[in-house]
């Protein structure tokens, strides 16, 4: 059984390497002998290869996290493996924070449980085992055991692959693992996307929420928020201002950096958690989005695992689009860790961006980049690509109100050292809206940071295999 899992993990590692490293790195990874095998066998190997133990069980609670310096950044490893007994084993780079156990004969064993850690993260083991959910049925960041030990912002998969690539490069050239990636890693990628929850600001729900919030401060004996009356009036007169009209501005700013992005549209059922703006403005919004940009579906609140509702939403949305719907994200990030992947694959979604935390920035699947989810029934990768959501603009600002752009720089710099893609969601309604002054200019500054780190800014689907990007799916919905 573990062999099946190991094959899946190796496939994801290879695909990740091909996407974010040079061809030279991929070749070395393929040439070096890497075996997944039980720990007891691994410790008895006496030849120059990498032996990855796959049979050491872990709990979902990370144990003994520690940091190591690597390629100009700091990696965080956890669930350390015991040092093999017997003579000839050394700790590299040092015994205090080992990355590898190396035998004098050249055998390398990772010093942390790379197999279990990465496999568990990609398969969302935390949330499959923990029944906790919030009012929207979501497993949120504060429920994750990694949150308690500050590991949500650790892209463990990327770090593990970077260590493997560097080790292979060292083994290939001088029979010793290296701890840098000189010339092997490609520039980072920033996956840009925008959920068009509201295309106008005068719908009943948005205006009602503004009205209620006028009086909210009274509860804590503060002055009522009378400015909301202005926002109510403003969007009554100019419904599209700062919502639909921001799309052009966002596209312009992206163009200034040579970036493109995805726009996900919400249609279908209305209501407080549904498509508040309805669908009437979608064609007008579409006209503002250049053809090189990707448009997709923002699965409505009530479509979670509901094939009928999602089909209906897809069919309606397809009628507005001049290009196929290949990708999407769930409204409110509603997602079932057991069933959603296979459900979305069965619905013809090829790229999903729903797996992120609404309350914390971080790597819900431990990976900064796309991967194919594991199908526990068949033991194979699903025909779906998940691009986990790492950063939502208002989460970033709530979590780091003083220095959101610096935090973005820190995260992206780390990824630039180890390879990968950070996914950023920025809502058009928060791009430039005097009602939310805290987000003013943030998107522009974030893109500038990305540009200075020589990152590529793209929609998620552009990272996927070419046949998916070029797929004409219009026939899928009987159009």
């Amino acid at each position: 059984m573990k062999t099946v899992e190991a094959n899946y993990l190796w496939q994801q590692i290879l695909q990740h390497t091909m996407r974010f490293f040079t061809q030279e790195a991929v070749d070395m990874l393929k040439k070096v002998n890497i075996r997944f095998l039980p720990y007891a066998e691994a410790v008895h190997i006496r030849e120059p290869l990498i032996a990855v133990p796959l049979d050491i069980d872990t709990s979902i609670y990370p144990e003994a996290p520690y940091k190591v310096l690597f390629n100009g950044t700091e990696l965080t490893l956890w669930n350390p493996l015991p040092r093999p007994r017997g003579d000839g084993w050394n700790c590299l780079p040092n015994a205090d924070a080992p990355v590898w156990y190396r035998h004098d004969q050249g055998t390398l064993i990772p010093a942390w449980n790379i197999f279990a850690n990465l496999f568990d993260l990609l398969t969302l083991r935390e949330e499959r085992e923990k029944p906790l959910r919030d009012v929207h049925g979501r497993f949120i960041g504060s429920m994750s055991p990694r949150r308690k030990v500050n590991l949500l912002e650790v892209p463990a998969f990327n770090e593990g692959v970077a260590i493997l690539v560097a080790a292979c490069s060292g083994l290939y050239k001088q029979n010793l693992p290296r701890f840098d990636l000189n010339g092997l890693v490609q520039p980072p990628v920033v996956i840009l996307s925008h959920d068009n929850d509201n295309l106008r600001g005068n719908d009943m729900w948005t205006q009602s929420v503004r009205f209620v919030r006028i009086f909210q401060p009274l509860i804590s004996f503060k002055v009522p928020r009378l400015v909301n009356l202005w926002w109510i009036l403003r969007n009554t007169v100019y419904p599209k201002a700062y919502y639909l009209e921001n799309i052009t501005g966002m596209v312009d700013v992206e163009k200034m950096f040579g970036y493109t992005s995805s726009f996900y549209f919400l249609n279908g059922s209305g209501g407080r958690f549904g498509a508040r703006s309805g669908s009437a403005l979608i064609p007008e919004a579409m006209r503002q989005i250049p053809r090189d940009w990707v448009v997709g579906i923002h699965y409505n609140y009530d479509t979670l695992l509901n094939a009928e509702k999602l089909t209906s939403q897809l069919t309606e949305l397809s009628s507005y689009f001049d290009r196929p719907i290949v990708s999407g994200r769930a409204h409110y990030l509603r997602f079932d860790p057991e069933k959603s992947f296979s459900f979305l694959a069965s619905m013809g979604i090829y790229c999903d961006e729903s797996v992120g935390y609404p309350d914390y920035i971080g790597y819900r699947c431990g990976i900064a980049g796309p991967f194919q989810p594991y199908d526990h029934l068949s033991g194979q990768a699903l025909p779906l690509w998940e691009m986990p959501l790492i950063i939502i603009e208002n989460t970033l600002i709530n979590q780091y109100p003083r220095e959101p752009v610096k935090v973005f720089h820190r995260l992206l710099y780390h990824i630039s050292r180890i390879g990968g893609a950070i996914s950023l969601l920025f809502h058009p309604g928060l791009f430039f809206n005097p009602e939310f002054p805290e987000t003013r200019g943030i998107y522009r500054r974030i893109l500038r940071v990305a540009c200075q780190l020589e990152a590529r800014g793209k929609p998620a689907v552009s990272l996927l295999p070419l046949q998916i990007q070029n797929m004409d799916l219009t026939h899928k919905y009987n159009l």
Partner: protein
Amino acid sequence: MSMEIATKSGEHPQLTKAEMVSGDIEAHCLSNSKKQERTQQETSNTQDIIVRFINPGDFYACNNFHNNLYKKDRTDTQWQWEFLHSGLPEIPFVVAAKDEEILGTLAQIPIRMIDQEGEFLTGKSEEALLDPAIRGKGIYPQMFKKIFDYMESQNILVVWGFTPAIKANVKAGFEEHTGIAQLFFPFHADAINVLLKNNRSSKIKVKGIKILCSLAGVFSSISLCSTGLRINNSLAQNICLKTLSTPPEEGADLCRTFVRQWGGTTILRNASFLKWRIFENPHIRATVRAAYLDNQLLGWVAYSLDDNSVGHIVDIIAASNKINSSSMETVVAVLLKDAVVGLRKTGALGVRAWKVNSHPFDDLVARAARKVGFYFIPRGEWMVLHYLQGSAARPSLKSIDNWYINRIYTEGVLG
């Protein structure tokens, strides 16, 4: 990039502008005996400093030198884009180096210009940086001489640059200068924070200015909405605006028409220049909106947004054989209005453009800008010129007022 000489802190808090270039650092430091000792020691070491042209091995060090002095994060790609595009046999980049350590830099970016007599080469001065420890030792004049001699040998007629330190640059040999004023369209009161970046006014005064800025914004918006009343509306309605994603092939012809129509000289905006300067700019690519009438290119406006959410008109140019000068004001107003609306949608707090001299087109842009709702602010940096051999024979180079100058003359960090 201005031509000032920076200190290690990236600013120049203790030195006067004259000191920055004249290198009169010893006098500034007299009160500090330790520093004086160090200076004496350094004086003896300046003999080992070599002024030479850059080698490929210096690229990284030169960019690092700049980044450390200015506390910037310019990437190697951006450095290469800026300085490895000269087309001259030697890279016009001089360094002062001791052993392999870079202690000073001075560069020229060759820019092709055009006047009624044809095309000619000029040099844009850049990267004038000297380590504070070696100022006042005669290194800077050596660097200037070396690069000016080279530029002259390559038939460059004039070199130019931008600076806040006008006296120092005049002392360094720049003969002519002109002040750069601003045209400003306010959207939001916070825009004033950017304009008053180094101002130490009291909080009450700033608050007052902000209120005025808000009011000015309201008046500007009213002006913008009613622009149609002040321009040739029938012409405006026939103008077709397009966003360009590649440089227009007619760019060079437009510039030829421009110098015939408006006189003087300006940068030759041919396809290769625009591709380099705007469409493949690794800092930020300005949005270029072109105006067409009956499929004929009339002109364009290029605009971008800076880190402080202030919009900038990077370039605006218009010329046509078919349209007279007064109607051209409508074309410029339409372009400016489009840029203002576009920048407002990107979340800009305000829009800045330049008003530099009394070139006829510069005056026309200012008039059109007033009609759209811009205000004139007589405040800004300086542009300086230094004539090289052969320039005297060129009538368009007799006065700086003959130059049509806007932000496209800058190094391109803002697009």
